[in-house]
Each structure stands twice: as C-alpha cells, then as structure tokens.
C-alpha cells in the first residue's frame, strides 16, 4: 500500500531508480480527458449494471422462489452465467453480438424488424452492450441473495396480509420488499465496489474501444501501467479509484444506516 502511494509520486523505473515528480501524476489523472471520460463510463456502468442486476435478480427470485425440485433445477440453470469463467462468457457474447445480419442477436432483432445493430463495434451501442452482459451475468447472483432473504420472510405476515385482503402486488410491496432491505444493502454495497472495479468484461469484450466508448478506470489504469508502462500515473489512478471506492462504500453504508434508523 505504502509502495503504491510512493509510486504515485514518482516516474517508476524499477532498475534505474524512481524519479520524483511530485503531484504531476495526480494532475494528469484528474485533468486528462481520457480519465474523466473513463470515470463517466464507470459511473454509467455502475448505475446501469447495479440497477439492472438488482431488478432482474429480484424478478427472478420472486419467480423462482420455492422448494419444488423443478424450481431447483431452473435456479441452477439460471445461476450458470455467474459461475462461468468471464473469458468464456466474453467469447460467447462476442459470437452472439456478431455485428452482421447473420449474427445470433441480430437474427432475433431481424425477426422483430429491427437491426442489425453493431453492438460492441459502434461507439453508440458498445457501452450498453457491455452493460447488458454485466446485467445478464450479475442478475443470477443477486437472485441467490434475494432467495436467501426471501426464505427468511415470516410466512405468517403473508397470511395476515392475505387475510386482510391484500393482493399479490400489495403483499410484495408491503411485506416482501421491506423484509428484503438487508439484502438490498448488501447488494448495493457489493455492486458499488464491483462496478468501480469493472475490468475483465471490458478488457475481453472491447478493450475500452471502439473510440474509447467503453473505457473505464480499471482498463485505463491497466493500459497506462502495463501497456504504456506509466506505472506512476497508473498508481495515481488507482489511488483515486481507492478513494472513490471508500467514498462510495461509506455513502452506501451511511444511507443504509440512516434507512434503518428511519425504519425504527
């Protein structure tokens, strides 16, 4: 950790001796247009993937709750994307996203009279396409957390609500969702960090392209550190990322705590 901080103030040259550059690395990070764009993309991805995964995960959890063997098999199948190696996921989605009319997803779009879309190959659609993969992969994980939380909901509350004449929608709103509050806190905290550190899917799917439209902080730090060998600037970037992670985590935790107090 200390070394990372030290590096962020130096031009790093392991065999020649580091050169002190003061706060120049930080200056480059916070003023560099590429960094600012990357921060923007990271935030968009963070919000989109988190929101998408949580909503889809909740819907899946509500649909697949129960103890029947059939549901267990379906849940296992739905969970597969989460446990599949990202390299495999990326390669599969690259094939699905083939940007010609005979690509798998484009064929589906064609049946609906839309497309063909360029997906990963157009600056307009690349970020959304990556986000969709993230949601697809993250939702089943969120679903499992929700399922665990749903199992802990007191059944008598449902019965009481039903006895009071509440329909399905009102039961979900007044009984299920409040009971899931702890799960939401966990998921938002995890998702905030996960999203800030998003790297593998971008690296494998687009490497930040086309035209930098999917560049996120981690891919930029990787490029600077290991492709351009600007380890000092990369270290400064990671310190900024660390600060953002801590800030975001605290923000989520604080808002969670405040929510709890309000609930009390």
């Amino acid at each position, binding site marked *: *950790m200390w070394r990372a901080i030290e590096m962020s103030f130096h031009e790093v040259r392991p065999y020649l001796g580091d050169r002190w550059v003061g706060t120049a690395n930080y200056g480059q990070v916070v003023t560099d247009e590429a960094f600012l764009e990357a921060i923007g993309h990271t935030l968009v991805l963070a919000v989109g993937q988190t929101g998408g995964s949580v909503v889809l995960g909740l819907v899946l959890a509500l649909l697949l709750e129960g103890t029947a063997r059939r549901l267990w098999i379906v849940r296992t199948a739905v969970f597969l994307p989460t446990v599949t190696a990202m390299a495999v996921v990326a390669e599969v989605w690259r094939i699905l996203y*083939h*940007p010609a009319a005979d690509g798998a997803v484009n064929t589906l779009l064609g049946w609906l009279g839309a497309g063909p879309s360029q997906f990963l190959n157009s600056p307009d659609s690349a970020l959304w396409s990556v986000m969709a993969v993230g949601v697809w992969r993250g939702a089943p994980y969120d679903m499992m957390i929700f399922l665990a939380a749903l199992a802990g909901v007191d059944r008598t509350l449902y019965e009481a609500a039903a006895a009071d004449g509440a329909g399905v929608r009102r039961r979900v709103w007044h009984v299920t969702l409040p009971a899931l509050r702890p799960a939401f806190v966990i998921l938002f905290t995890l998702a905030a960090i996960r999203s800030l550190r998003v790297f593998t899917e971008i690296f494998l799917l687009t490497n930040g392209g086309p035209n930098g439209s999917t560049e996120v902080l981690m891919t930029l730090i990787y490029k600077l550190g290991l492709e351009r060998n600007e380890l000092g600037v990369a270290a400064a970037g990671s310190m900024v990322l660390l600060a953002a992670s801590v800030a975001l985590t605290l923000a989520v935790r604080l808002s969670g705590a405040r929510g709890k107090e309000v609930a009390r």
Partner: protein
Amino acid sequence: MNRTDRTGRRAAPTVLAASLAAVLALGTLAGCGADDGSDNAGGDDKAPLEIWVRKPPGSPTEKTHQDLAAAFTKATGVEAKVTALFDDFETKLQQAAAQKDLPDLIVNDTAQLGTLVKQGLVREVGQSEVAGGDQLIPSSWEAARAADGKYYGVPFSAQTFALFVRKDWREKLGIAPPADWDQLDALATAFTTGDPDGNGKADTYGYVIPGTTKRGYMDWYFSSFLWSAGGEYFSGEGKSLKPAIDSPAAIAAARHLKDQFCADKSVVPGAVTAETTQAHPLFETGKGGIYLTGPYNMARFDKALGKDKYEVLPLPPGPGGKSAVLAEGENTYLMAGSKNPKGQLKYAEFLIGTEGQSAGMAGDTAGNVVRLPVNKSVKLSAVRQDARWQVFDEVYRESGRYSPVVKEWTPFRQASAEALNGMVADCGSDPGAVLGKLAASFAEELKKQGAGS
C-alpha cells in the same frame, strides 16, 4: 469482483480490504524500490541461464527454442532453461522486474526495445563485442538500436508482412491478382458482394483487420499503408523530430482505410474490437478473404484452411508508386541483473550463428522461430523449399521498414491505434481532424521523450 461478503455488517471492511488489495497488486507490479541498474559485471560463467520466449506454451515453436537451448548447453556446458509465455508476456515481465527477478535473456519483439531500455531492464550490447555480429544483415541491427544510438539487444529473427488472399475466391470471380490499391479494393469489394463462396448468402467480406487498440494493433496494421502512401510518422531526425502524421499523404492513407470500413463496407464485421487471435479464425473460416499478416501464420492456415485455398502476395504499391511494409522481428535481449553476463552474450551469439539460425528456421515446419534469417551467410532457400517464404524474404529486403526510432515507440503506437480505431468506428469522423489531433499528441509525447521541440 468482490463476492465474498454475505452480511451487510461485514461488507465495509471487506470492501476496503478488496480495494486495498487491488492497489497493492498494482504496487507489486511496479516493484519494491530503486536500484542502481548495475549489470553484475563479474558474474558466474557457469550460472544457468533462464530464457523467456514469447511463444505459446506447448507449441512447436517452444520446442524449437528448447532444442536450441539444449544445443547451446551441449556446446558450452552452460545450462539453459527456456520458458515459453505468450499471453501478457510484457505484463509478466513487468512483474518479474518488480520482484527484481528478471530472466537472463528474453527473445521478444523488436518493437519492445524502447520500453525495455527506458525502464533499464536490458543492458547495452556493444556491436563489436558480439562474435559474429558482423555477419548480420546491416539493416537488422537497426532493430536493436535505441534512440540514443546505442544497441540494447542482438537481432535474432526478421519478418515482414504480405497479403494472404483467398485464391479460390479470386479465381472463381475471375479477377487478376491486384497490382495497385484500387485493384486491391475492387477485389475486396468483389469478395464482399460477389458471393465468392457460392453459398447464396451475403456472408463474406474483403479485408480481415485486427482493429482493436490492444497492443496498438490498429496502428500496427496501418503503418504499411501509411508508408506506402508516402506518409510518415515523423519528419526530421534525432532531437528535432516533428510529427508528420497529419501530412496530406498520411490523411489520404487514413481516408483510404476509413473508406474500407464506412464506404465500401468491405471489412469483416467486428474488426474494430478484434485482436489477432480473433482475426485469424475469420480468415480460416471463410469470413474474409484478404489478410495482411506475417509468415508465421502460414503453418496455421495451411492446416485450418488448406494450402491450395490461398496465396501469398506482396502488398501492391500505394498511390506514391512505392511499397513500404512494416518489418519486425525478434531480438535477443540481455536482461539486467543476470548472474552470468558472459553466458548471456554467448547465448545471443549462438542464436545468430549459422547453427542457431538454421535450426531456428525449422525447415518448412510450424516450429520456425527464425522467420527470415538475420545472418547473411545463411540462405533461406537452403533450409526451406516452400516458395511462399521467398515472397516474404523479397518484401523484407526490398521494402521492409522498421518502426521509427524514438526513445519509446509504444506510446506513439498506442495513441495512433486509438485515434485510428475511433476514426473507423465513427463513420462521421473527419480523417484530417483525427490525424491533426493525433499529431498534437505526438508533439506532446516527443517533447516528453526529449526528442522534439
């Protein structure tokens, strides 16, 4: 991704720990402190040599390198161990550097020279101290010369690029081999629209292009076209280098590239995010019919596609009437901090000798690690019967051209790749403006490297 947390209460410390770990990981990559960069001049002449080669583990090329090491050990008694690494070779090297545990030698791309020198990972090699160095093709030494005029490696293998063209498609459509860029583009368009595979579907394309920014592939591909169009990266020399990437000829070359993507639509879809590992299969599986690539792919394509299905043609001359094709290759780099500096040199000398070069060519097999020999006394035709190698040999000798000599080429290549990638990904872009912006970033980088005003 952080997926270890199961309770809200524990999330914050774990999250913090995960974030710290990420930063620490980067810290580890960059090493634990400064060093004086000494080369351990005394050394132990019998200390075993560790050699890293940028080859896929388990490949025939790794086997050739192991055979070379065994032959060296037999001849000198010095033990030599070869490790093949392919993916993220440079990353692993950075990690080894950070741990102050570099291999004794690496055999890696010539384009890595500047980066290795800048970081002090390699030691200087006096041209005169290399026994047999005078037997090398003079231009091959250029690949080991850094911006300070000194040499930091010994050339080992040279290569250049040529067009791999689907011969069966071309003949089916009744088109002659292209003699200039217009004919080449016409061929690419015919491959895109003329259903050359005869399956009744519009599922074939002209050019296969690895257009991602990763490792600067897009620029790597473009450079031959830039030079052949009469464009340059820089004008001037040494400390007075100036960006020339926004010259009219360079803009014309960029526009030509963009037209292939946007006007003719003759490039295989997905090119702007494809790297070579994704591009090769597009040629092999009949998606695209024209691929500018290196001789190392012949063995692979012969196996996957069939030797009779494609031909190897030199890149036709550009609008300026000349052809200049990127020359690359591999150097043997003598790494800093070795316990056996004399052994390092001996190994490099062994590799450029007649025995090393001939064995490295590995006949017509897929195990070749010497693409084109750098030793002028070694005749390519004496080792290889396959006439296609002669095409590469001729291109290398007549129009081969190495990347510009600057302190560090990687930032330029990366910036150029990103600019070009952006240009072809956005069909509304203006090549003149894109290259103008690129020239400005070149000027900034030149200044940073102390090479421009």
